[in-house]
């Protein structure tokens, strides 16, 4: 199979299924062959992986300390009061 079996325009739509392991074996094969030969689509894949890395860092956002304090107070009340 040649690289032309799947075109860049289709590759970008298959990226998530590929990353999720949801591509059928033959589709996956074609996808991987295309990627091996197309540096632009490799760049696209790299960008998608980098996007996930950046998204994963959002989680490190600070939670307001006063909110943590007030919930911790509720925790203290319930857990120490009850037991």
């Amino acid at each position, binding site marked *: 199979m040649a690289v032309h079996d799947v*075109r*860049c*325009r*289709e590759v*970008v*739509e298959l*990226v*998530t*299924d590929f*990353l*999720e*392991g*949801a591509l059928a074996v033959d589709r996956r094969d074609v996808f991987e062959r295309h990627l091996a030969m*197309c540096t*632009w*689509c490799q*760049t*696209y894949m*790299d*960008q*998608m992986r*980098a*996007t*996930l890395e*950046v*998204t*994963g*860092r*959002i*989680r490190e*956002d600070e*939670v307001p300390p006063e*909110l*943590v304090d007030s*919930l*911790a107070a*509720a*925790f*203290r009340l*319930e*857990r*120490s009061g009850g*037991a």
Partner: protein
Amino acid sequence: MSGLGEQPAADGSEVAVVAALRAGDEDAFRALVRRHHAALVRVATTMVDSRAVAEEVVQETWLAVIKGIDGFEGRSSLRTWIFRILVNQARRRGAKEARAIPVSFLAGNPEGAGGHAVDQARFVPDGQRWAGHWCEPPAPWTDLPAERFSSKETVAAAASAINELPGRQREVVALRDIEGLSGQEVCELLGLSEGNQRVLLHRGRSRVRSMLEKHLGGEG
């Protein structure tokens, strides 16, 4: 393996966290809040009508966690258990979550995002030599200074891109890529099929990549 593997049950470290919570360990509880609160708010915001209601729902969720931790049986992960409480609390509010996913959406006309991962103008049009291949290819981000890529501004750009996604995409991307839930957990929490979950994830992620590309290319 796929991202839709077995739903993780409580693991060893989680057993320790649960034990600490039951013993009234306040630091363990604070750590749990810091770990999950922002994602709970983000997800709740997609399920109720306002940010204020979302924050109330999350507060109620934490209170339910405090009261209910003794009843946690470890059949799902602690995280899934907390999110399930959140989804139930949000639904109790008679929230906008009741709306069904339109059929047109699943047929590839998603809520406002355009049906494509990438602007079609960036590919050679049909009928020409090299049709369907890039004519305006992506530029490698690895050429950027590392501090630019890992800057707070870049993370903020991703966060704002996610906030602007249509509701269901936002829920799925927040749960999968911010909070790190498995595909199966997300299907279960939101009542989605695996296929629908992947479509939503694909549209959402593609949109976030494209917004980051604009952000990183814009002020190069």
